[in-house]
């Protein structure tokens, strides 16, 4: 079983979900489930912290896009925290840097957004 860390904290009214490990077709369902659960509980201001993610592919990107859609439908917002060049690269190539607000820290994400 491949591990995916999902740690939830609270910051200034934002639900901050820190993800660690590799996000692929094996682990993405767990991330999706968690995000869907948050929105279901009415938590629609979400920061997904990708700083400890070693790998993400299009399956993981799809889950994040799906969650963004879902929070927006509920008048919320979803921001990302990511500085690692290998992770940023897949957002850049797929054009998703223009779809997501990507911040350099959780502080920046929860203050500026």
């Amino acid at each position: 079983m491949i591990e995916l860390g999902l740690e939830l904290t609270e910051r200034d009214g934002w639900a901050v979900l820190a993800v660690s490990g590799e996000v692929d077709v094996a682990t993405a369902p767990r991330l999706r489930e968690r995000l869907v659960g948050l929105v279901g509980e009415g938590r629609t201001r979400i920061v997904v912290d990708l700083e400890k993610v070693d790998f993400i592919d299009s399956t993981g990107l799809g889950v994040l896009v799906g969650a963004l859609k879902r929070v927006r439908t509920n008048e919320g917002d979803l921001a990302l925290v990511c500085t690692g060049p290998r992770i940023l690269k897949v957002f850049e190539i797929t054009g998703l840097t223009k779809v997501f607000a990507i911040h350099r820290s959780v502080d920046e994400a929860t203050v500026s957004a």
Partner: protein
Amino acid sequence: MKDEVVHLRVPAQPEYLALVRMVIAGTARIDPLLDDERVDDLRVIVSEACTNAIEALRVRADDQGIDPAALDSTIAIECHLSSSRVEVIIADEGGGFDPDDLDALPAVTDPSRLRIERGLGIPLIRALSDEAEITSGPEGTRVRVVLDAEAPVST
């Protein structure tokens, strides 16, 4: 000319994907032809190709109303190391598709982009490789990519 090959065959199941990435990265590092960034590109490429293979199998199993694991299907990965490039071939036993008939992605500025949760895999494979070739038929799909040692893809 030197051509050393590592062959790997795994069950077409999600839990083997991390292993495949590890093998590809480990193989590419045996001869340090590619720098770390390009090894990471290769990990994404292989992950995308194998995810599609697994998904194709899932579709085939759904059609037959059975568990995908019951198909006992495998993904075959070949990694060729030559003195100037790394070539990887990913072959599956899914039902195939027409690679020339994929929907184009809406422009990133288009608000409908938000509707797109899928369809990013093959664009990523093409963008991250120096050469990509997809051949597909009812017997399965074969994705061949090349990463040159000399010509790093810039982001």
